[in-house]
């Protein structure tokens, strides 16, 4: 990749800062963008993602709402009906549940119900996932609920750059986007040039983060760094793992995913969400439907266990880690010694 112009200076930025910048730029460009939620104004959000927005754009553009998630999302629906582009913050994953009816019965369906007359250009930001030592109800990976709701786009960044690009794309989208922010990557850093951010990442495209030839790890959000680490560690075992960052769960990028799996012939899906009924099932099933004859082994899954999210002191045992990923890769029938009936 060459460019004649001098590249803008890149300096370390956190994912949280990139998200803030995305909100700021979107608000500056488009006066219909309104940020709303609990503590997003004066405080700047409990994760400080909306820091400075109320000061810069006023309390009407970035507003502290009463403490009621259905009310927040429900009023945002009305605001969107009137032509605004609300960006709603749900404070934590499990605290989006009170808004579930508004989400499933209105946000996801309004365009469809009205034959396109009432679009829902809404972005619903939800900090999600574990690994930050949160007490109960603060670490859910709730993406399965959103995947199963037609009419919602579901995206989640895993890099600083994507945090900016995907959030801009989400806000610009004329359809609702559930924007899942991996809490434990908020403070992850990367060199990034906020003044010349990368072109806005299109929703619906996965990205190969590490090319490899032995097997493909399919992952997203908080599990991407873990998978990259696992891929490094796997070299010692003689495996060259490809890592695909799905980024967009809906729409799903079958092309990128299947191209990779057809090439490597083996795949493992990795996510924090519980395994049973989680996104991994859908991903494994569709990859198998499309790539069956290229597969040397069944698509396996490394996921959170099928238990309520554990207390902080035990969460490391629940979360997919490097060892568990490597153990699973080892079960991909490298020597055709697969014993059936011992499923994941």
């Amino acid at each position, binding site marked *: 990749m060459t460019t004649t112009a001098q590249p803008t200076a890149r300096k370390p930025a956190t994912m949280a800062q990139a998200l803030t910048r995305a909100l700021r730029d979107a608000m500056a460009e488009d006066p219909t963008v*309104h940020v709303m939620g609990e503590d997003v104004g004066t405080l700047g959000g409990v994760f400080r993602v909306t820091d400075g927005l109320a000061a810069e754009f006023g309390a*009407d553009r970035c507003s502290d*709402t*009463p403490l*009621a998630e*259905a*009310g927040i*999302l*429900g*009023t*945002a*629906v*009305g*605001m*969107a*009906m*009137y*032509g*605004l582009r*609300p960006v709603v913050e749900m404070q934590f994953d499990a605290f989006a549940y*009170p808004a579930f*009816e*508004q989400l499933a*019965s*209105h946000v996801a*369906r*309004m*365009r*469809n*119900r*009205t*034959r*396109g*007359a*009432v*679009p829902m250009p809404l972005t619903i930001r939800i900090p999600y996932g574990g690994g930050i030592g949160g007490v109960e109800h603060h670490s859910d990976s709730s993406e399965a609920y959103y995947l199963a709701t*037609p*009419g919602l*786009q579901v995206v989640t960044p895993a890099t600083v750059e994507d945090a900016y690009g995907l959030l801009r794309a989400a806000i610009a989208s*004329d*359809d609702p986007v559930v924007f899942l922010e991996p809490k434990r990557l908020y403070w992850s850093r990367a060199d990034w040039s906020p003044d010349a951010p990368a072109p806005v990442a299109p929703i*619906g495209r996965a990205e190969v983060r590490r090319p490899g030839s032995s097997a493909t790890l399919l992952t997203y959000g908080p599990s991407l760094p873990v998978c990259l680490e696992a891929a490094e560690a796997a070299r010692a075992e003689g495996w060259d793992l490809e890592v695909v960052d799905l980024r967009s769960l*809906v*729409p*799903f990028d*079958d092309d990128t995913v299947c191209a990779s799996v057809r090439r490597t012939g083996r795949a493992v899906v990795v996510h924090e969400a519980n395994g049973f009924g989680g996104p991994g099932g859908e991903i494994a099933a569709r990859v198998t439907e499309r790539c069956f004859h290229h597969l040397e082994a069944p698509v396996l899954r490394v996921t959170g266990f099928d238990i309520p999210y554990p207390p902080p002191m035990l969460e490391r045992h629940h979360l997919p880690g490097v060892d568990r990923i490597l153990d699973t890769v080892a079960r991909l029938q490298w020597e055709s010694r697969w014993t059936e009936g011992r499923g994941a």
Partner: protein
Amino acid sequence: MTVLEQPGSPRHTSGPAVPPPAWRPRVDPAPLLPDTEPYRLLGTDAARRLDPGLLKRLYTELVRGRRYNTQATALTRQGRLAVYPSSTGQEACQVAAALALQEQDWLFPSYRDTLAAVARGLDPVQALTLLRGDWHTGYDPHEHRIAPLCTPLATQLPHAVGLAHAARLKGDDVVALAMVGDGGTSEGDFHEALNFAAVWQAPVVFLVQNNGFAISVPLDKQTAAPSLAHKAVGYGMPGRLVDGNDAPAVHEVLTEAVRRAREGGGPTLVEAVTYRLDAHTNADDATRYRTEAEVETWRAHDPIALMERELTGRGLLTDAFATATRDGAEQLAAALRDRMHTDPPLDPMALFDHVFIRQTGQLRDQAAQLRAELDAEAEADGTTAATPAPAQEARP
């Protein structure tokens, strides 16, 4: 001496313990409280001063509304409508809600408020699309500023608040009127919507049609409140109680609330006490939960009868006017009957439009699958012409 010497623990302070400012009520509750008797005009002296034009307008709409209700109910029996939640007995609320609004305002109806939408100008057939079943919302909500008829109870209320709030932020002169039933007031969304409206001082009017029942559940299993209008004070907005069968009274109370909202005075909660004379829907059997005697009590208080008494008393119910009114209502019913007696055009491929603004690849594949199935079906039937038009990408 004091025992505490930990950091953060206070020493004695002298002087009186003055309650800090946040303790004081910021608003006087008295004017927010509703009267204990529903407000009425018909049969009172004040009614004598009502504009004859308004009375006749209301009456005409009531009669059309009743006729619409009976015709729609008949259509369910003829299999032309899947279901119809009749507002017979509640026409005064329906009509007053529509007439209290100005052109630029928005109406947020529930599934029972088809009539309010029609009285506001919505095409009577489009209003029934949901209940006929050829699509969900049968109209473009922006055309008459009527939100989709809403089925999940009370969920339309926060929408109304958000829309009104957005309009006010934009500096537009728009009021939203949202309708909900007595049962719907028990839902969390009712509470959250009213609270947001009051905190934002949004230009919204909430109209609760208390028709005594939520399907089979009577009001006293729904609430123990003095009245539903008494809920208003808990949000810091005025509550108004009105006889929901007294069309001029409902009209006046709503018009006043709409004016208040328009002038920046914030939201109002109006409870209109009325009665659902028909069953919940044509599919319901109301004899399971209420007596004919109770229904009769309310028939004696029918909104149309009340108006006729007033009009007659003031010599306004001339033969000519009565005939014209009846003929107008019959024309409405006849047109509805005719138009509903043809099957609506159906395009199965439309299922894949409008899920997203642009069809995803996945939906394109599924559309192709359905198209192939339809083609095969048509071929089997020998009706090659049945192939539907290609699914269109939604316009951006």
